[in-house]
């Protein structure tokens, strides 16, 4: 049995029905442990004080905001190359989740920036590229909603996603070139200890896992919704004909 079996809507509905409760359970578990640990049982940072607690939301949300777009790129490509409907619908289902994560990263960043940098917003490269990412999500969602025929919409948004990815990377580079920023460097790099100390490290990892699981749970559920809607549309079309 090939992996493409799961691209069959029926198979997908079966598998996801089985998978979804597990994903939800694990999400609640991880997010619960991670956030409670982080919020209540970690010390303040010597430099940043209590604001360091924001890291447990900010960093996972920021990472996922990017990863969701990558996932949409992959599923879009699968749709363009192999034309599996579920793949296109999964991309459609993921976009609002990605947008929400982007907004969370932006908002928590803004609340963090106020005490740390003395401003809600600065045209820092990383912040700017997130704003651009937010625009990409908005445009992508708007295009899905603008096109009536679902296959046409899938094709157009697929092309937009591929082209958009290239330009998103370009803007990231451009923005770096344009302004040296205030923002923290990557802290989860090879040598973790250099950036974030041990006490913050483990709860952060758990929170990241929690956000990944949250995404999986939501995307499964939303893809199921999209499949149902699509099937209802198909049946209604058939009804009209009869």
């Amino acid at each position, binding site marked *: 049995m090939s992996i493409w079996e799961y691209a069959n809507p029926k198979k997908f509905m079966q598998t996801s029905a089985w998978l979804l409760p597990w994903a939800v359970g694990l999400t609640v578990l991880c997010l619960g442990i991670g956030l409670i640990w982080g919020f209540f049982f970690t010390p303040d940072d010597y430099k940043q004080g209590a*604001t360091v607690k924001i890291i447990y939301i900010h960093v996972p949300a920021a990472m996922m905001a990017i990863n969701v777009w990558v996932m949409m790129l992959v599923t879009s490509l699968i749709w363009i190359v192999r034309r599996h409907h579920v793949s296109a619908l999964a991309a459609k289902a993921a976009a609002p989740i990605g947008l929400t994560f982007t907004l969370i990263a932006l908002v928590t960043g803004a609340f963090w920036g106020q005490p740390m940098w003395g401003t809600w917003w600065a045209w820092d490269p990383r912040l700017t590229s997130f704003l651009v990412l937010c625009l990409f999500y908005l445009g992508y969602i708007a295009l899905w909603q603008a096109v009536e025929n679902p296959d046409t919409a899938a094709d157009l948004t697929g092309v937009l996603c591929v082209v958009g990815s290239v330009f998103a990377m370009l803007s990231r580079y451009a923005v770096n070139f344009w302004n040296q920023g205030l923002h923290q460097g990557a802290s989860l790099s090879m040598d973790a200890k250099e950036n974030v100390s041990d006490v913050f490290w483990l709860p952060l990892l758990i929170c990241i896992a929690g956000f990944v699981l949250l995404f999986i749970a939501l995307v499964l559920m939303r893809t199921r919704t999209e499949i*149902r809607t699509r099937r209802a549309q198909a049946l209604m079309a058939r009804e009209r004909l009869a």
Partner: protein
Amino acid sequence: MMPDLGKYAFAVLASYGATVVLLAALVALSFWQRARAKRLLDEVEARAGKTDG
């Protein structure tokens, strides 16, 4: 129980609050859409079942 957040209470609580609001909105939207899709599909399938078995 509540950790002392000091002068950063607003920033931290607002961040957590905003996150909860945004996630709750997304989850609510997802459930609402799910309910709507289910209702629609059930209706349509009931009708389809009647007309052509």
